[in-house]
C-alpha cells in the first residue's frame, strides 16, 4: 500500500508530552501544603513509635501536580476520546450529570455508620435502585453489596451453596461452566469451595443440550451461564436449559455481563435463571475509571432470598434501615454496604430512561452490533453465522493466510484512530475479535470503524504484513515488552541509595 491512509479515518494527534515519574524529579520538596487541624503535641506514648525514616514520597506544588497528572491523562484513550468497542465490557457513554450528583455533600460526605435517621436520603435512593434492578432482571430480591462482577459471582455461588445445604443437598459441589465462559466463573466457584466441570460448546458456540444432559447429576450444584453468551449469541434453548438443570436438582447462575442486550426487552428471571449478577459499570453506565471501581449487585429469586448477604437495605413504613442481623444470610461479603457512589450513578442512569425508554438501550445496542457485523462479514471470518445480539464475533482466519494475526489487526486499528475490540476472548475460537459498539455510538462512528477494518483487510490481502507487525506507530508508546516485564518484574521505583 503506497498511499498512507494513517490519517484517513481519524483526526491527527496533537502535542504529546513525556512526563517523568514523580520519583525522578530532582528538586527540593516544596513547603508543606497548608492543612487544617490542631497543630499540637502527640502523646508521649505515641511518640515512642515515631517513624524514624520518612517514607520517601516526593511532594509537588499544586500546579506541578496538576500538570503531572493531566499530561499523563493525555496518553490515555477513554470513551470520551473515541470509540471503544471492547466486547463484553460495554463501554458506553458515562453521563456527566452522574459525576455531579455523587459529589453533593449530602451523598459524598456521609459515613457508613452514621445514625440511620441522618442518612435516610441515601438509603432511599439505594432502596429504590434495589427495586429497579429486581424489576429489570425479573429476580425481585437484590443485594447491592458486591463490589464487582466477579465479587457478585462469588456472592451468588455462596447463596446457591447455602440454598442447597438448606435443602439437604450439601453434597452438591459441582459447577458446570461452558468453555466459552469468562475466567472469573471457575475462579469464583473455586473460592466457594466448589469444583468446575467444563462443558464443550456446540458447533454454533452455544450450550450443547446433550453435553449438558451428560454432565447433570446428583452432584451438580449449578450451571453458570452467560446469556447472551460470550460469543454474542442468545441461548435460545434457555427455557429447556433451565428446566433440565432444575429437574436435576441444581440451580442456574446467570452471569449478567451481557445484560445490555436484554435490558428492558427481556428478563433473565423470566427465563428460569435463579441468580444473576449485574455489572453496573457495564449495563448501567458507571465509569470504568481505568479498571474500577465497579459494582456487582446480585438479584435472586424467592428460594435464594433468605441467603442474601448483610447488611440489607430495607424499608419499614416510611423509614429506611440497614438490617445487619439475619440468621440465614451468607454473611457480609464486603466491609460496607457496597460501592455506594457507583450504585448512585447507576440509579441516576436508570432514572434518565425510566420505564418508557429503557428498552431502547438494548435495541440500539443490538442494532449497532448487527450493523457492524453486516458491514464486516464479507471480509472477516464469522465463526457463528446469523444475527448477533449486542456484540459480534470475528476471527483472524482469513487474515492469517496473509501472515497477519488478531493482535496485528488490533494494533493497526490504534494507528487508524480506534481502540481495539476485545481480542482472544472467548477462547472457543482461534484469534477471537469481539466487537461491542454499545448504543451510545453514532452511525458515523460505526461507519468510520468499519471503513478502518476494511482498510486493514485490504492491507492484509495486499501483503502489508510488515506495516501490521510494526503497528502501532502513532501513539505515545509502541508495542511494549511484556516478556521483560514478566521475567524481571519491577513493580516499584527503587529507593535511592544514599
Amino acid at each position: 500500500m503506497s498511499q498512507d491512509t494513517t490519517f484517513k479515518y481519524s483526526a491527527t494527534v496533537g502535542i504529546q508530552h513525556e512526563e517523568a515519574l514523580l520519583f525522578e524529579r530532582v528538586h527540593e520538596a516544596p513547603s508543606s501544603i497548608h492543612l487544617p487541624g490542631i497543630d499540637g503535641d502527640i502523646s508521649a506514648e505515641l511518640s515512642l513509635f515515631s517513624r524514624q525514616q520518612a517514607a520517601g514520597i516526593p511532594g509537588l506544588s499544586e500546579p506541578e501536580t496538576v500538570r503531572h497528572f493531566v499530561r499523563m491523562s493525555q496518553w490515555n484513550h477513554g470513551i470520551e476520546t473515541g470509540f471503544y468497542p471492547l466486547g463484553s465490557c460495554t463501554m458506553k457513554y458515562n453521563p456527566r450529570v452522574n459525576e455531579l450528583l455523587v459529589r453533593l455533600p449530602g451523598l459524598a460526605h456521609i459515613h457508613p455508620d452514621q445514625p440511620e435517621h441522618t442518612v435516610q436520603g441515601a438509603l432511599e435512593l439505594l432502596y429504590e435502585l434495589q427495586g429497579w434492578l429486581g424489576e429489570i432482571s425479573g429476580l425481585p430480591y437484590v443485594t447491592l453489596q458486591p463490589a464487582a462482577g466477579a465479587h457478585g459471582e462469588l456472592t451468588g455461588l455462596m447463596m446457591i451453596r447455602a440454598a442447597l445445604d438448606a435443602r439437604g443437598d450439601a453434597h452438591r459441589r459441582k459447577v458446570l461452566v461452558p468453555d466459552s465462559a469468562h475466567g472469573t466463573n471457575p475462579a469464583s466457584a473455586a473460592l466457594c469451595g466448589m469444583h468446575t466441570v467444563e462443558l464443550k460448546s456446540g458447533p454454533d458456540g452455544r450450550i450443547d443440550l446433550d453435553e449438558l444432559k451428560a454432565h447433570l447429576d446428583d452432584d451438580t450444584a449449578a450451571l453458570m451461564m452467560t446469556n447472551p453468551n460470550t460469543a454474542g449469541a442468545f441461548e435460545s434453548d434457555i427455557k429447556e436449559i433451565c428446566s433440565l438443570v432444575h429437574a436435576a436438582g441444581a440451580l442456574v447462575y446467570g452471569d449478567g455481563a451481557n445484560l445490555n442486550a436484554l435490558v428492558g426487552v427481556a428478563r433473565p428471571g423470566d427465563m428460569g435463571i435463579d441468580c444473576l449478577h449485574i455489572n453496573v459499570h457495564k449495563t448501567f453506565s458507571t465509569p470504568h475509571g481505568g479498571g474500577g471501581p465497579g459494582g456487582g449487585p446480585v438479584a435472586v429469586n424467592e428460594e435464594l432470598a433468605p441467603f442474601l448477604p448483610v447488611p440489607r437495605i430495607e424499608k419499614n413504613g416510611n423509614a429506611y434501615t440497614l438490617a445487619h442481623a439475619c440468621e440465614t444470610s451468607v454473611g457480609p461479603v464486603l466491609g460496607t454496604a457496597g460501592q455506594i457512589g457507583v450504585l448512585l450513578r447507576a440509579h441516576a442512569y436508570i432514572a434518565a430512561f425510566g420505564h418508557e425508554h429503557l428498552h431502547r438501550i438494548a435495541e440500539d445496542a443490538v442494532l449497532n452490533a448487527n450493523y457492524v457485523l453486516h458491514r464486516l462479514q464479507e471480509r472477516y471470518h464469522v465463526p457463528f453465522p446469523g444475527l448477533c445480539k449486542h456484540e459480534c464475533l470475528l476471527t483472524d482466519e482469513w487474515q492469517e493466510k496473509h501472515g497477519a494475526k488478531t493482535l496485528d489487526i488490533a494494533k493497526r486499528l490504534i494507528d487508524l484512530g480506534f481502540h481495539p475490540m476485545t481480542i482472544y476472548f472467548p477462547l472457543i475460537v482461534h484469534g477471537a475479535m469481539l466487537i461491542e459498539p454499545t448504543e451510545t455510538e453514532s452511525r458515523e462512528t460505526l461507519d468510520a470503524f468499519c471503513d478502518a477494518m476494511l482498510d486493514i483487510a485490504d492491507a492484509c490481502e495486499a501483503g502489508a504484513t510488515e506495516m501490521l507487525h510494526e503497528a502501532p506507530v502513532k501513539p505515545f508508546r509502541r508495542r511494549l515488552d511484556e516478556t521483560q516485564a514478566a521475567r524481571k518484574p519491577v513493580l516499584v521505583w527503587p529507593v535511592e541509595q544514599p
Partner: protein
Amino acid sequence: MRFLPHTGSDRQAMLDSIGVSGMHDLFADIPSEFHVEKGSLKLADALSEAGIVRKFTRAAEKNHNASNSRYFLGGGTYHHFVPAAVDYVISRGEFLTAYTPYQPEISQGTLQALFEFQTMIARLTGMDVSNASMYEAATATAEAALMARRVTRKSRVLMAGSVNPRYRAVTANYLSRLDGEYAEVDMGAFGTDLDKVIAAMDEQTACVIVQYPDFYGSVYDLAPLHAACDANRCLMVVAFSDISAFALIESPGAMGADIAVGSGQSLGIPMGFGGPHLGLFTCKQKYVRQMPGRVCGMTSDANGKRGFVLTLSTREQHIRREKATSNICSNQGLMCTAAATYMTLMGDAGLATVARHSAAALQSLVSQLPAHVSAAAGAHYNETVLSFAGYAARERFLLATRNHDMFAGIPLEQIEAGVDTRHLLVATTEMIEEADITDFLAALEVSL
C-alpha cells in the same frame, strides 16, 4: 433520549442495510414468551437531567453530612481533607472513562499513575511491593489469609480479636467454605496482649492477622509476634484502617509484616457512605507471585522508551481460571489515581502534618477528659474508645452532641456485636478544630 445518538431514519437505514424489516427481527431469537411489553416495567417515569438533579439534591439534603458537622466517626472510614485538585484529576475523561489498560500503548496514563501509586503505597507501608489495589480493606484481609495459605501450604488462620470486626467477618466468611481452621483470639476488652495470640499459634498456622493501629486505635509493638511467627514458619499479616498513621508512626514493614493490607480511603477519597473506597495489598518481594490482584510493571517499548504494562497476569483468573490466586478481575482503578494525586500533593511533609494533626486532636481530647469518662489505655494514633458510666450516660452525651451538630462517635456495639453498651469509638483527623474539642468536652459535662 439524549444518550442515544440515532434518529429514526438512522435506525431505519441501518435496519435496511442489515436486511431486516424491523427491530423485532433482531430479537426473534429470544422466545416471544419472554418479550417484555415495551414500557411496562415497574420503574419510575423518565426524568430530565434537571429532574434527576432535583431528585438527588432533595435526597442529599435529607442527610446530615460532614461538611456542616463536627465529625468524630472512624471504625474503618475517616473524614480527612480531600483537596480539590484530586477531584479534578479523577474527573478528567481520560482517567474516568478509560478501561483496564489491556492495550498498554494507549493506556500509559493509567499505567504510569498505577506504577507511581504502587511505589508510594509500598514506601508508606514500608513493604517491598504493592499491587494495583483490591476492593477495600475487609476483602483484602480475606485475600491475605488465602495468600498466606498458598505460600506456607498450611491452612490454619489465626485472627486477633482486636482486628476490625468487619474484616474478621468477611475473612471468616471467605474461609468458611474451604478446608482449614479459622480461629479468633480474644484479646480482652481493648486488649493489646500479644501473648494471647502467640499462645494460640501452632505448626499448622499459616498466618496470624493483627491490626496496627488496631480497631480501637491502639498502637503497640509487634516485635514479639514477629519473632513467634518466624519460629512457627507462619506469616505475619498486618491490617490497617487509616493509612495516614504511617506518616507518623513506624510502618507495618518496619514491624516485620510479611503481608500488609488495609484501606487507602484516607488518601483523598471521600467517605461516600461506604464506597467506593480503596483496598491496599502489599507484601515482601519473595511472595510476589502469590499476590492476588492486578499489578503494573515497568518495561520498554519497541523504540526503547520506558513504559508500563500490567504484568504477572498468569496468576490471574483470565489465565489460571479455577487455579487463579483469586477471582478478582478489576481493581479500584480511579481511586488509585485519586490516592496517587493526593500523595503527590501532600508529599512526606504533608502526610506527616495530616498525621500529626490527627493524633494531636485525639491527644487534646483524651488529655482533657472529665473523671467520669475514661479512654482506653496505652498509645493511640487517631482513634480510641471512650467508656461511660453506663448506657444512659453515653446516650445523654450523644443527644447533647447531636444538638451541637456533632457526630461524636460510633456506639461500639454497632460494629462489635455483644460488647457493653457504654463504649464509644471516637476518631479524630485534621478536620477537627479546637472549638470542636471544646464543644465535645462541654457535652461530656452534660452527661454526668
